[in-house]
């Protein structure tokens, strides 16, 4: 069975500048600042002993007060997993760095989250709608999206 990595084990090995961006450990995920997302993801991917080289999925969540983006990482070689969580307080223009530079597979899911939740992924090669059509008004998975929007 795949083992969930211990939070302390990650914190211990994170470089100082990246560890300062870690906010908390909640619901089996490490909550981090968006500024250090790319740095921490690259570190987790390459660090010997962690080698979380496979991005399984990206999930966008509307938590009403803020948006949350969850990254589920797996190590295919070492058979363990770890979750990163990024919270975006700005509901009007939420922006988060894209991870397409590390995992090309992030491209589709980041577009999906942009389409349905309106979170912009900076650095994404083609940040546009994917399921809905150009000209569609609003982002329907937002909690404040209502009928007749």
């Amino acid at each position, binding site marked *: 069975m795949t083992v969930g990595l211990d939070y302390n084990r990650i914190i211990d090995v994170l470089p100082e500048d990246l560890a300062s961006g870690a906010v908390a450990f909640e619901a089996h995920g490490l909550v981090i600042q968006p500024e250090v997302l790319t740095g921490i993801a690259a570190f987790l991917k390459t660090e010997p002993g962690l080698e979380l080289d496979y991005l399984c999925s990206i999930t966008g969540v509307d938590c009403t007060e803020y948006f949350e983006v969850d990254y589920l990482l797996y190590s295919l070689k070492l058979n363990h997993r770890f979750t990163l969580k990024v919270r975006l307080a700005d509901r009007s223009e939420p922006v988060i760095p894209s991870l397409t530079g590390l995992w090309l597979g992030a491209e589709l899911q980041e577009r999906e989250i942009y389409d349905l939740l309106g979170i912009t992924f900076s650095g994404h090669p083609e940040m546009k709608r994917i*399921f*809905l*059509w150009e000209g*569609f008004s609003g982002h*329907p998975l937002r909690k404040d*999206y209502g*009928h007749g*929007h």
Partner: protein
Amino acid sequence: MEIGSGMNSRDLDLHEGHVIEDLRNSAVAGLPEPSGWLTEEIERNIITTTVDKFLNWGRKTSLWTETSFTACCTFEFISTSSSRFDIARFGMEVLRSSPRHADLMITAGTLTWKMAPQIKRVYEQMAEPKWVIAMGACGISGGIFADSYSVVPGYNRILPVDVYIPGCPPRPEALLAGIELLRKKIEKRSIAKGS
């Protein structure tokens, strides 16, 4: 000898006599029965009918379905078309991948607005005469997704629908009943009415 205004009673009697004699002389043998010239081979193979009946018979017994199935009602259609329910009984087992060959569109499934232009295009590519069966709740009205931002609330928003089959999904029996309704509808068509 022709009948004229100057003829007297005697001339009329003579004329009548000539007519009777001519008929009697020509009627030397019994006439054959009217259909006597038909051989048994012809009688067994020629059926008379109307153009309407013939065309409608051809159309209703070879409804070829366009394969443009958008969602889960498809599986009920697949079940209907395979051996247990055997749609081949109605000459419908030929599923067409090209709309140019198809007569019938069965709207098996939820239609999203993103897919709607393609479905409309496929319908327009089908040759006349053509029919549409709205299968299932989504096909009729959008079903449980009727209020959704992304779902077309009923195929009749974009296509003219001939028969509606309720159900979520309709069982194969219901689909067959709908097909039977459509066949009855086709029977009533007439080229004289331009339909």
